[in-house]
């Protein structure tokens, strides 16, 4: 789309020429698109370009288009080489990463180890897992142009998993001059070494983001697998087009205006059934974890016994049914690490998974000495998937004897309000609900709700929980899978007993695309490499 500005309208000759040229196309409803352009409507419009400064999923998706990562993660959740191969010293304390040949930034400069060191440092300053990693790093340096050496000061078993993690804040590599920007300062320049180049001139925040094939990209030879494997680009351009209205996106997909729709609302799926031109599939098979978080600083949830009563009152089935509707796309899961993941463990979640026990919860509440202090629950009204859980949970808590006040507001107001650590009367809160991509919570290092750092360091709700921090450190130090799983199981048990948060089950979203696209495959993030567009 070309945008012309009103000032141009003064030039009547141009207008006349434009009119003359355009009249002939009136009969044709659509302007021909470039044959190898994929137009996709993603989960939300792209507004921020810095994939380190924000955790917005659309910015992460943008990140995977433009940037590359040292390591990728395959669909079996194993770290694999991407920009670099690696070796680990016999004592497990030194990791050496070697950049593969032919890597270039989009401005033409070669990718160097110094760029990658700066990128890891910026990522680690922002990412919770990265911070934990760097607390155990003695030295991170570029040994030569192609070699990065990471020396640990203490054993740390999750180095590769963190550098390969696909969601939250992935460790994207940037040129050193950009990566030297402080992590809290948002960058607006998108120069990476990934398979697509960002077309800055065509970027309209909240409207469209355009990517072109990076001709100098050298993909790995392996087939694509998760975020690992070869990123062979088969199209000239990919356009992320914003459509705030889901019905409009559905119409556009059916008419061929767009090729890909990342998240089809489950209730609109029947409209696509029987349409041979449209293919639907769950691409991120682990899906999302729904969850509720209490405020540990304010009554009544500053009392662990009252939190336990609330946990006993809550049941996942009703929440999921109201939230997703179609049981084909959700299941109960009591693991704080999500189900289907390497650390999945449902210890302590029986009542939650079985639907809750209001009678027992009422008794626990009485024994805890609950004095009727209102529970202020923040309810998002503008994000369909977030509307139902607070309403259902409020009803379940009321049945157990809680005095609940629902506070409806838009999601961004919740985002702003949940920062407030004060009492409800001063703009605070007692409980809110959100969702995470399972890959963001699937281990104790990444899962933000398991941080027990209190008001200064913990995630919203701010539990001060030394035990969980000790267990997380024990997990990080474990270097074999059996020990990691055993520690994770203890973390699960502790999290449920302390009610660090309330996992409310797992659901999946469905993507839809036109049959002209070939090669769309399951992955933790939407991937447009390896996807071609058939030209009829």
């Amino acid at each position, binding site marked *: 789309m070309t945008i012309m500005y009103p000032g141009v309208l003064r030039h009547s000759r141009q207008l006349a020429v*434009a009119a003359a040229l355009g009249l002939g196309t009136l009969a044709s409803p659509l*302007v021909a698109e470039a044959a190898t352009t994929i137009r996709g409507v993603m989960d939300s419009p792209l*507004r921020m370009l810095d994939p380190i400064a924000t*955790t*917005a999923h659309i910015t992460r998706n943008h990140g995977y288009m433009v940037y590359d990562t040292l390591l990728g993660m395959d669909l079996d959740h194993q770290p694999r080489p991407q920009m670099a191969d690696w070796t680990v010293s016999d004592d497990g304390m030194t990791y050496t990463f070697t950049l593969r040949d032919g890597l270039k930034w989009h401005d033409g400069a070669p990718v160097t180890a110094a760029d990658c060191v700066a990128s890891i440092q910026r990522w680690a300053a922002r990412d919770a897992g990265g911070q934990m990693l760097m607390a155990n790093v003695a030295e991170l340096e570029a040994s030569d142009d192609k070699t990065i050496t990471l020396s640990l000061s203490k054993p740390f078993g999750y180095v590769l998993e963190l550098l390969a993690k696909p969601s*939250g804040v992935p460790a994207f590599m940037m040129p050193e001059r950009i990566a030297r920007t*402080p992590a809290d300062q948002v960058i607006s320049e998108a120069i990476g070494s990934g398979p697509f180049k960002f077309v800055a001139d065509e970027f309209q925040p909240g409207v469209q983001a355009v990517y072109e094939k990076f001709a100098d990209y050298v993909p790995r030879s392996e087939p694509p697998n998760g975020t690992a494997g070869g990123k062979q680009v088969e199209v000239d351009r990919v356009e992320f087009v914003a459509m705030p209205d889901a019905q409009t996106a559905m119409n556009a997909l059916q008419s061929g205006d767009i090729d890909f729709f990342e998240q089809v609302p489950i209730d609109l799926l029947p409209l696509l059934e029987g349409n041979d031109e449209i293919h639907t599939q769950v691409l991120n098979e682990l899906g999302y974890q729904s969850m509720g978080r209490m405020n540990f600083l304010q009554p009544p949830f500053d009392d662990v016994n009252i939190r336990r009563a609330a946990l006993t009152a809550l049941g996942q089935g009703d929440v999921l049914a109201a939230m997703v509707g179609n049981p084909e796309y959700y299941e109960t899961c009591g693991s704080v690490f999500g189900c289907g993941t390497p650390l999945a463990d449902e210890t302590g979640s029986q009542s939650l998974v079985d639907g809750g026990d209001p009678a027992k919860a009422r008794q626990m509440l009485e024994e805890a000495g609950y004095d009727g202090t209102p529970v202020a629950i923040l309810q998002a009204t503008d994000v369909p998937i977030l509307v139902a859980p607070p309403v259902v949970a409020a009803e379940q808590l009321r049945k157990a004897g809680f005095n609940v006040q629902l506070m409806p507001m838009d999601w961004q107001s919740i985002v*702003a309000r949940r920062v407030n650590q004060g009492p409800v009367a001063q703009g605070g809160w007692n409980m809110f609900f959100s969702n995470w991509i399972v890959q963001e919570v699937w281990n104790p290092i990444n899962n933000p709700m398991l941080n027990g750092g209190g008001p200064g360091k913990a995630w919203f709700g701010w539990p001060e929980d030394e035990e969980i921090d000790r267990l997380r450190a024990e997990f990080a130090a474990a270097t074999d899978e059996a020990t990691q799983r055993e520690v994770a199981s203890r973390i699960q048990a502790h999290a449920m007993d302390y009610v660090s948060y309330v996992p409310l089950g797992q659901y999946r979203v469905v993507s839809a695309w036109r049959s002209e696209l070939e090669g769309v495959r399951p992955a933790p993030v939407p991937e447009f490499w390896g996807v071609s567009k058939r030209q009829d």
Partner: protein
Amino acid sequence: MLSYFVRRVIAAIPVMLVVALFVFLLLRLSPGDPAAIIAGDMATPEQLARIRAALGLDEPLYIQFFVWLGELLRGDFGTSLISQTPVLTMIHQRLEPTLSLALVSILFTVLISVPLGVIAAWRHGSFIDNFVMSASVVGFSVPVFVIGYLLIQLFAIELRWFPVQGFRSLFDGVGPFVSRIVLPALTLSSIYIALISRMTRASMLEVLDEDYIRTARAKGLGERAVLFRHALRNAAVPILTVIGTGFALMVSGVVVTESVFNIPGLGRLIVDAVLARDYPVIQGLILLTSGLYVVINLLIDLSYAATDPRIRY
């Protein structure tokens, strides 16, 4: 006339300053935190504090206000906190779709509603009058998005006469522009057609009973000349007022139509900016809209003199 124009323009300056101060205070005193929105879901209190400092949001309010005012006086509307794009660039990108939609909608409105209102008044109490009045009730009552979806279903999906969504600049060709603007403009204008046809009918009914109309008919003028040259000109002042304010309302209230037809205009920009607490963008857009209201009111006042010879400035 010229001195009136200059006085009105000078009078607009304090209005805009008050708007600027009011908008600034309203935004800063209402709940919201752009830092929390930028940081996303995984932010810790320490990170939020650092982001606030990086954005200058930890400065006292009066310093933030004067910094912004100073930038405004230099013609700099600031930079979006979220996308780091200059506010003026964002407004430029979004202005053409919204202005196009509003102008075409107002064109449809005038072309459809004024003749309908005149005919309804002329045939007062007839089937046509009843039809126009009933249709205008429908136009008032049916929500804009429902009309939009019905038009899409019929004309874009069933008949395939128009695309289902999107916007093309006029400079991409008249065909693509027209094919994409017709349905949203009809949707947006529906409520204004209803409003202005009723308004025109009521104004016309008032003047059609006047002595000068009887005189015009008595001296043998044709009905068309009586209606359009004598009656409509005298009934025009309230109609022009509604059309003018209707245009300003369209520019500031097109968000639903823009969403249904996926038009990347100012309406969506301001909703996005409000939801993200993107202060510079909201401030810039409200100033722009306020300026637009000032200009349109001035043009309406000037147009009175053009249509009514009794009015002089």
